[in-house]
C-alpha cells in the first residue's frame, strides 16, 4: 500500500504533453491510469526510474494517439457529411440559394483575382529585372519618361555601376518584302537590348543579333506573316524604300504582360540622322542595367544633374531612375494604376463577404430546423466544439460545391471578360499549381467565414431548452441578422452610386467641347515618300468636292506631348520656360475648326510665317502680353543659331484640350517650322457618303504612291481610345454592381421566404380576421424596406468620399449631384421591394385553411 501522504506527482511537463495530445474524453482517465501505475513504480523501483518510465511511455504513446484521433475524426466527418447531404436534399430551395450565392461571389472573386494577378505579373520575366531601370527626367515638377539620346552612353562611360544601356524608340515605318507591303511599328534600340532584357531569340543569332547596323530582329508571328514556314534568317526586308535590313534573329512573341510591346527591332542609326542620335533633347525612353547589388538610390543621387552638366543647358533637368517592376503599375505623374488594383481587389472581397453573409443569415434564420438534431447530439455527448466542427464542415462542403459552379461560370464568362479587360486570362487549373492552390484557399476561406457565425450560434443551443421548445428567438441574433442585411445593401448601394457617377463622368468626357471638332476627320500616317510630295497631294485631295480641308501636323490634336522651351520679350534665353509645341501645316486650325481669338492663322500670303508662331490662350497668359499680335516670341530650336528661334506672334488660338481631361490645359505653341516631321495628315470631309468619299481619297493616294498602305482612322475613334482605362473600369464596375445586387437580393429572398414561412400562422389568422392580401404584404415588406433605407444612409458618405477623390484625378470633371444618391436609394428600395413582395405575395395569398390545418 503506497504511502498516501507522500504522493508523488508524475513529471508535470509530460502530463501536460499527454493532455495536449489526447483531445478525446479519455484523456482524464488515461492520466489517472498513468498516475496509478506511476505511483506503484515509485514504490517498487524508486522515483528516478518511475519518472523515466513515465516519460518514455508518453513518447511511445504519441503515434497511437494521433492515429486513433485521426480514425475517430474521419468517422465523425463521415457522419457530418452524411447529415450535411441529407439537409441539402431536404431543403433544396434554400440550399440552392446558398450555393448560388456563394458560387456567384466566388466567381467574381476569381475573375478579379485573375486580373489582379496578371497586372502584378507584368515584366517579371526578365532575368535582370531587379537591376533594370528606366531613365526619367523631371522638369518643373512634371516627370517625363523620355530622356536625351546621348544620355545613357555618357552615363555608362562615367559611372562603372552602369553596365549597359539602350534607347527604346517607337516609330512606324513602311516595309516591303516581295509582295508584302506593310506599315509596321518598329522599335529602335542599342545592340545590348537583348542582353539587358529577356526576349529569347529562337532562330538565328541569339548572342549578338543587332551587332550589324543593317540588321533587324522579328517576332515569330511577324516571321510567319512575311515568310510563312520558310527560314527567315538571312532574308532581307526593305524599309522606307531605302533601308535594307537583314533578318538576323527571330524572337519569341512578346508576352502580353510586358509593358514593352513590339514585333520588329532594329538600330536607330539606319533610320535617323546622326545628329539626332547625338542630341541632348528629350526624345525617347532609355533604359539602364545597373550591376548586381548596386543601390539605385545612390546612383540617382549621382546622376541627378547629369543632363545639366553634360549639356551645359541653363534649364534644370533632374534625372531619375524608375525600377522596371514599377513601370506598369506606377505612373510618373498623376494616379498610379495600382490604385485600380486595390479598388478591384476590395470589390472582390466585398462581394465574397456579401455571399458569406447570405449564408450566415440563412443558416441562422433556419436554425429551428436543426435544433432537435443539435440537442440530441449534445445529449449523447457531443461537446460544443464538436457541433462547431460539424457546422464548419457543412459550410466548407457547400463552398466546395459552390466552387464547382463557380469554376464553370468563370470558364463561360472568361471570353467576355477578356474583351472587357483587354487581356488574355485563362483559368488553367492543371497547368498552374498556384491557381489550384488559390482556388482551394478561396473555398476554404469562404467556408470558414460563412460558417463562423452559424457554427457558434447553433452550437450554443442547450439541449434542455430545445427539448422544452423554449428557444428564444434571440433578440441579439435578430439584430445581428439585420445588421448583416444592412451591410449587404450598403455595399450594393455604394456600388450603384459609384457606377452611376463613373457613367456620368464618361458621358461628360465624351460630350465635352474639346475646343475643336473631332468628328468627320480622317487621319493617316504619311510615309517618308509621301511626305516629300505632301504639297501636291494636298492640292489633289482638295480637288475632291467632299474634302473640305486638309492639313498636317506632327501629333494628334488631343495628344500633344512634345515639349520645348520658349521665351519672349522681357525674358532672356536662359530663362526659357517649358511649353508644349506642335508643328503644323497651313490650314491646321481651319481643318480642326479651332477658334482663332486674335490675329490670324498661318497664311501663304505672308512668307515670313515660316518663322512665326501662334500660341494658345494659356501660353498667352504666361507672357503677360496685352496686345500679343506682332510681339516677339522665340522657340529654342537648337543650340546654335539663336537668331533662327526668334519670330513674331501672328495669332492666338482659343484654349483646347490637347491632353486627356485628366490634365489642365497646357500652354502650347504652333509653328510651321519642321522641327519634327509632320507625318500625320488630317482630312476633313463633309459628305453623307462616307464610304464613297474614302474610296476617292484612297484613289488620290495611290496615284501618288501605289504601294502606300491606306490605313485611316477617324479622329473621334482615336479620341475614345484615350479613355480606354476609364471605359473598362466603368464596364467592369457595372458588371460587378449587378452581381453584388443579385447576391444581396438572393440573400434577401431567402431570408424573407424563411420569415414568411415562420409567420404562416400569423398571416392566416390575420386573413381570417379580415385583413386584405395587400395589407398583409405591406406588413411583411415594411421591415425589409426600413433596413434598405438605413443601408442607403450608411452608403452615401462613403461613396461620396471615394467618388470625389476619383473625380479629383481629372482636371475637368462633372459634378456629383444629389439626385444620383436619391436615385440609387430608390433603385435599391425598389429592388428590395420587388424581391420581398414576391415572397410576401405568395405568403399572403396562401389559403388560411391550409395553414391552420396543422394546428
Amino acid at each position: 500500500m503506497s504511502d498516501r501522504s507522500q504522493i508523488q506527482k508524475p513529471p508535470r511537463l509530460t502530463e501536460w504533453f499527454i493532455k495536449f495530445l489526447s483531445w478525446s474524453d479519455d484523456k482524464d482517465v488515461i492520466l489517472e491510469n498513468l498516475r496509478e501505475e506511476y505511483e506503484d513504480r515509485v514504490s517498487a523501483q524508486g522515483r528516478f526510474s518511475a519518472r523515466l518510465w513515465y516519460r518514455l511511455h508518453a513518447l511511445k504513446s504519441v503515434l497511437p494517439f494521433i492515429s486513433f484521433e485521426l480514425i475517430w475524426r474521419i468517422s465523425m466527418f463521415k457522419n457530418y457529411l452524411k447529415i450535411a447531404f441529407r439537409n441539402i436534399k431536404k431543403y433544396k430551395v434554400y440550399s440552392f440559394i446558398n450555393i448560388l450565392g456563394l458560387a456567384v461571389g466566388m466567381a467574381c472573386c476569381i475573375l478579379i483575382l485573375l486580373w489582379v494577378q496578371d497586372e502584378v505579373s507584368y515584366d517579371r520575366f526578365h532575368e535582370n529585372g531587379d537591376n533594370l531601370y528606366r531613365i526619367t527626367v523631371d522638369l518643373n515638377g512634371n516627370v517625363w519618361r523620355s530622356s536625351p539620346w546621348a544620355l545613357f552612353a555618357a552615363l555608362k562611360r562615367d559611372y562603372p555601376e552602369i553596365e549597359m544601356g539602350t534607347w527604346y524608340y517607337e516609330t512606324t515605318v513602311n516595309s516591303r518584302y516581295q509582295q508584302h507591303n506593310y506599315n509596321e511599328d518598329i522599335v529602335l534600340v542599342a545592340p545590348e537590348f537583348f542582353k539587358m532584357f529577356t526576349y529569347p531569340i529562337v532562330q538565328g543569332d541569339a548572342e549578338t543579333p543587332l551587332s550589324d547596323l543593317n540588321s533587324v530582329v522579328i517576332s515569330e508571328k511577324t516571321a510567319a506573316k512575311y515568310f510563312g514556314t520558310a527560314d527567315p534568317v538571312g532574308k532581307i526586308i526593305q524599309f522606307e524604300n531605302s533601308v535594307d535590313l537583314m533578318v538576323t534573329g527571330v524572337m519569341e512573341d512578346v508576352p502580353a504582360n510586358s509593358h514593352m510591346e513590339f514585333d520588329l527591332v532594329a538600330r536607330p542609326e539606319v533610320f535617323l540622322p546622326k545628329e539626332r542620335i547625338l542630341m541632348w533633347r528629350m526624345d525617347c525612353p532609355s533604359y539602364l542595367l545597373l550591376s548586381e547589388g548596386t543601390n539605385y538610390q545612390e546612383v540617382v543621387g549621382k546622376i541627378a544633374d547629369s543632363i545639366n552638366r553634360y549639356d551645359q543647358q541653363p534649364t534644370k533637368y533632374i534625372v531619375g531612375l524608375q525600377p522596371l517592376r514599377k513601370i506598369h503599375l506606377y505612373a510618373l505623374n498623376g494616379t498610379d494604376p495600382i490604385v485600380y488594383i486595390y479598388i478591384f481587389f476590395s470589390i472582390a472581397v466585398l462581394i465574397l463577404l456579401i455571399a458569406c453573409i447570405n449564408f450566415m443569415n440563412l443558416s441562422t434564420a433556419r436554425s429551428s430546423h436543426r435544433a432537435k438534431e443539435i440537442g440530441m447530439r449534445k445529449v449523447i455527448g457531443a461537446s460544443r466544439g464538436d457541433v462547431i466542427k460539424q457546422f464548419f464542415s457543412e459550410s466548407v462542403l457547400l463552398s466546395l460545391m459552390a466552387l464547382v459552379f463557380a469554376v464553370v461560370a468563370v470558364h463561360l464568362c472568361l471570353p467576355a471578360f477578356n474583351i472587357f479587360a483587354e487581356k488574355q486570362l485563362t483559368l488553367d487549373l492543371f497547368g498552374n499549381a498556384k491557381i489550384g492552390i488559390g482556388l482551394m484557399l478561396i473555398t476554404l476561406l469562404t467556408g470558414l467565414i460563412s460558417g463562423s457565425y452559424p457554427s457558434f450560434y447553433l452550437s450554443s443551443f442547450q439541449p434542455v431548452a430545445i427539448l422544452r421548445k423554449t428557444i428564444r428567438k434571440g433578440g441579439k441574433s435578430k439584430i445581428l441578422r439585420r445588421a448583416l442585411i444592412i451591410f449587404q445593401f450598403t455595399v450594393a448601394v455604394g456600388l450603384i452610386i459609384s457606377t452611376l457617377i463613373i457613367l456620368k463622368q464618361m458621358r461628360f468626357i465624351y460630350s465635352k467641347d474639346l475646343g475643336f471638332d473631332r468628328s468627320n476627320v480622317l487621319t493617316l500616317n504619311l510615309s517618308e515618300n509621301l511626305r516629300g510630295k505632301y504639297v501636291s497631294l494636298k492640292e489633289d485631295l482638295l480637288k475632291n468636292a467632299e474634302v473640305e480641308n486638309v492639313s498636317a501636323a506632327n501629333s494628334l490634336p488631343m495628344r500633344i506631348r512634345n515639349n520645348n522651351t520658349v521665351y519672349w520679350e522681357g525674358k532672356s534665353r536662359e530663362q526659357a520656360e517649358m511649353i508644349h509645341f506642335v508643328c503644323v501645316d497651313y490650314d491646321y486650325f481651319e481643318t480642326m475648326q479651332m477658334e482663332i481669338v486674335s490675329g490670324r492663322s498661318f497664311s501663304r500670303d505672308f512668307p515670313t510665317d515660316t518663322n512665326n508662331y501662334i500660341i494658345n490662350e494659356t501660353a498667352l497668359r504666361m507672357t503677360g502680353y496685352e496686345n500679343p499680335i506682332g510681339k516677339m516670341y522665340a522657340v529654342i530650336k537648337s543650340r546654335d543659331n539663336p537668331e533662327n528661334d526668334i519670330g513674331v506672334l501672328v495669332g492666338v488660338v482659343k484654349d483646347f484640350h490637347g491632353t486627356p481631361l485628366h490634365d489642365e490645359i497646357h500652354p502650347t505653341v504652333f509653328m510651321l517650322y519642321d522641327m519634327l516631321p509632320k507625318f500625320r495628315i488630317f482630312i476633313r470631309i463633309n459628305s453623307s457618303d462616307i464610304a464613297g468619299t474614302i474610296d476617292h481619297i484612297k484613289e488620290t493616294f495611290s496615284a501618288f504612291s501605289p504601294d502606300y498602305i491606306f490605313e485611316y482612322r477617324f479622329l473621334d475613334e482615336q479620341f475614345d481610345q484615350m479613355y480606354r482605362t476609364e471605359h473598362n473600369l466603368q464596364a467592369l464596375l457595372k458588371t460587378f454592381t449587378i452581381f453584388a445586387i443579385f447576391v444581396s437580393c438572393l440573400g434577401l429572398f431567402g431570408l424573407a421566404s424563411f420569415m414568411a414561412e415562420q409567420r404562416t400562422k400569423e398571416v392566416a389568422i390575420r386573413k381570417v380576421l379580415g385583413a386584405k392580401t395587400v395589407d398583409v404584404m405591406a406588413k411583411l415588406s415594411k421591415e425589409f424596406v426600413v433596413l434598405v433605407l438605413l443601408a442607403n444612409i450608411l452608403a452615401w458618405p462613403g461613396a461620396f468620399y471615394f467618388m470625389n477623390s476619383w473625380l479629383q484625378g481629372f482636371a475637368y470633371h462633372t459634378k456629383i449631384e444629389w439626385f444620383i444618391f436619391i436615385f440609387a436609394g430608390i433603385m435599391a428600395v425598389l429592388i428590395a421591394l420587388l424581391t420581398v413582395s414576391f415572397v410576401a405575395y405568395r405568403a399572403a395569398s396562401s389559403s388560411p385553411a391550409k395553414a391552420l390545418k396543422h394546428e
Partner: protein
Amino acid sequence: MKEISKAEEVVLLAILRLEKNAYGVSIRRQIIQTAGKDYTYGTLYGLLRQLVCKGFVHKRLGDPTPEKGGRRKAYFDLTSQGVQALKDAIAFHSQVWKDLDKNSFDRV
C-alpha cells in the same frame, strides 16, 4: 463476420481474465503478464474505443474515488457479443490450425 485482430483478441482475453476488475492499469498489467506485450496507454485506449464501437466491450463508470470531487474510474466489461467474438476467434483458430501443432514445422 470479420475476425478480430490479434491485438483486439489480446485485450478481450485480458478483460475476460480480470472479470469485473478491468480498467486501464489492470488491463495493461495483465497483458504484460500473460502475453509479455507492453502496450502504451495510447494504443490501449485506442483499441478499447474500437472495441466499444464494435460493441464487444462496455465501458462502465465505477464509484467515485474517496477524495473530494473524485472522478469515476472507467471499467471495461465484455458484452455478450464480445464473448461471442472470442468464441468465434477460438473456433477460427482451431479450424485454421487443424491437425497442426508446434511439431508440424519440421517438415519444411
